[in-house]
């Protein structure tokens, strides 16, 4: 089965997010006031796996081995057929 996997990598709560701060500031300069703004990185990939659970497990391994840095990041994995 082919599964479309979406992986989102974001900074852990409480981690300083300098990019978000700069973007929020730039939005404010354009007149858009925001109460909070966080950035995240999104990866979309297609996997061939026996089941949705296997696809999710594979994607989690990718996060642990490379895509996320456990010191600063947490991640979420969503799987769709």
């Amino acid at each position, binding site marked *: 089965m082919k599964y479309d996997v979406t992986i989102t990598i974001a900074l852990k709560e409480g*981690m*300083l997010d*300098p*990019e978000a*701060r*700069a973007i929020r500031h730039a939005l404010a300069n354009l007149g858009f006031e925001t109460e909070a703004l966080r950035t995240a990185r999104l990866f979309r990939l297609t996997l061939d796996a026996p089941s949705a659970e296997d696809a999710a497990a594979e994607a989690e391994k990718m996060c642990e*081995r*490379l*895509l996320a*840095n456990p*010191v*600063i990041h947490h991640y979420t994995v969503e799987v769709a057929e």
Partner: protein
Amino acid sequence: MRFAVVQFGGSNCDRDTLYVLEEVCGVDTDLVWYKDGLQRNYDGIVLPGGFSYGDYLRAGAIAARTPVMQDILRHAREGRLILGICNGAQIGSEAGLIPGTFTLNAYPKFISRHVYLRVENDTSPFTAGYRKGDVIRVPIAHKEGRYVAAPDVVDRLNREDRIAFRFCDENGAVTPESNPNGSTENITGVLGGDMCNVMVMMPHPERASESALGSDAGIRIFTSMIAHVEQQK
């Protein structure tokens, strides 16, 4: 005695480091292309500065997962000296050679200038040539150089005397103003390995290794490594 400087695609301080080791310090040094792996054991290995893999994903993340790193981790386990400078520090932290990591500067832009460092450890193979409390002037050039570690990790580093350098002002005071990138507790040099035989640092000692460069304060890192290897022989 033989040292190696490991080149990755995107390394750009490899030849500067080679020059300092060979021409200034007089150590036989191999420039090793990462795909070739380490063909022999080295007494010292330097992971140089640059932009391996374009800093894609995170600075150092992709280089840290190349096969040559297995050789380097083995060297670290065997007590051989590994020094990671700038991108090399990012690669070293991504490879787990030290705890904690380096990420985007608190003010998210590239910084290139001289800074002052306070020497916090004067017993490691990399810092024995200094005295604790020495203030040295060396350049930094990075965008992802903010050292981050969990509080319990920082406590352990402090307790085990594994912090090599902190950003400070010219009088040696460690202050928020003298912290150019927002690093945790101004830390910018961390010792790893069972025998403190690994050091990663964001500042560039190879760019401060001859007085003609405006500072020769960095040379003692290399001469300390060489003296350590000589003592072991």
